């Protein structure tokens, strides 16, 4: 039965483009497919041949337009990103990298605190190299990897929710800029330790941080756009496969 199951791709695309939350769309499509199977089983149990049962089931379920409309009438099922795109794709990317960095710093301070409680270091020895490496790696992740991950996630979210490219571009650019001009460093000589957080976006505007930030912004943007192109191409390949089953639908998705 599953081979002849309708795909409801058209309904899915319409709902996603209209801003219905992807989790609702996914479940709705799965429930419709199950409902279709139940209708076919019911008709076949009544002695109808399979092809006629499937045809009747599709009619009873309603046209793609009707199925999309009933869902679109429920505005409460729209995703946050569709209702408040400026908050998700402008405010979010500006705040998230900084919030994530602050969170990472506080976690680091907490860890130092816990270690200091257990290891008193009476001889005032500097920490071992491996410990310095772990801290340096953590700091690198907090300042370099986190903003990039946030930008990629925002990009994927925008693609998944069929947002306009302008929103995705804005989100990615803001996230990359907001997260690129920070430097987190740490040292401990056994007597004294310091965790330093510097920004190129505030006074005294250190030149080295600004130059490094510009390069990082450009690198991050290049990486995110590469991911964007890769995902779009992958979707294109999926469409190409769908083309063989339903050329009209594939054309509509492409034009949309």
């Amino acid at each position, binding site marked *: 039965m599953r081979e002849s199951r309708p795909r409801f791709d058209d309904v899915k695309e319409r709902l996603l483009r209209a801003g219905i939350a992807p989790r609702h769309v996914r*479940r*709705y499509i799965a429930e419709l497919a199950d409902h279709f199977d139940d209708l076919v089983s019911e008709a076949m149990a009544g002695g109808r041949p399979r092809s006629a049962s499937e045809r009747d089931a599709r009619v*009873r*379920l309603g046209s793609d337009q009707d199925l999309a409309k*009933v869902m679109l009438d429920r505005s409460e*099922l729209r995703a946050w990103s569709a209702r408040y795109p400026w908050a998700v794709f402008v405010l979010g990317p500006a705040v998230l990298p900084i919030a994530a960095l602050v969170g990472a710093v506080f976690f680091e301070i907490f860890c130092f605190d816990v270690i200091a409680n257990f290891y008193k270091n009476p001889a005032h020895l500097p920490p071992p190299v491996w410990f310095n490496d772990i801290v340096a790696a953590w700091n690198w992740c907090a300042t370099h990897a986190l903003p990039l991950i946030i930008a990629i996630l925002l990009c994927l979210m925008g693609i998944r929710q069929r947002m306009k490219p302008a929103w995705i571009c804005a989100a990615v650019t803001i996230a990359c800029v907001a997260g690129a001009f920070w430097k987190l460093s740490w040292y401990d000589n056994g007597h004294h330790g310091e965790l330093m957080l510097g920004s190129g976006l505030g006074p005294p505007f250190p030149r080295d941080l600004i130059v490094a930030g510009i390069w990082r912004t450009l690198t991050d943007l290049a990486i995110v756009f590469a991911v964007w192109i890769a995902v779009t191409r992958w979707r294109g390949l999926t469409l190409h496969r769908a083309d063989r089953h339903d050329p009209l639908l594939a054309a509509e998705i492409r034009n949309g």
Partner: protein
Amino acid sequence: MKGTDTLWREVRVVNPNFMNGVPDFLILRLLAEKEMYGYELVQAITARTGAAISLGEGVVYPALHALEREGALKSRRKLVNGRTRVYYATTARGKKKLSGLMVQWNRIAEAIARTMGETSHARVTAAL
């Protein structure tokens, strides 16, 4: 004379506002008795209303999602005969909402019945 089924379908087409809130009310009422999945629910609505109200097969799911989102329903996945189905049941908030809806519906139904009675009475008087 038209059957109730045809009449309801006409109501839905001519004045869809008449159907506003009907799916939510029926869904809450039936799910208050036992948990059901979408197809089962559509069958139950058709059977319980004597096919006077037959919701479009796809209409029920957006209503279920919306009710779950507002906390009136809860859902769980259950494996039945090798297939995973999403079963819905009412929550305490859903039962509260249902009792409120029932009061409203009863009031409306009584008002309409009264109006219909007056109209019938006026018609009979005019005919005499």
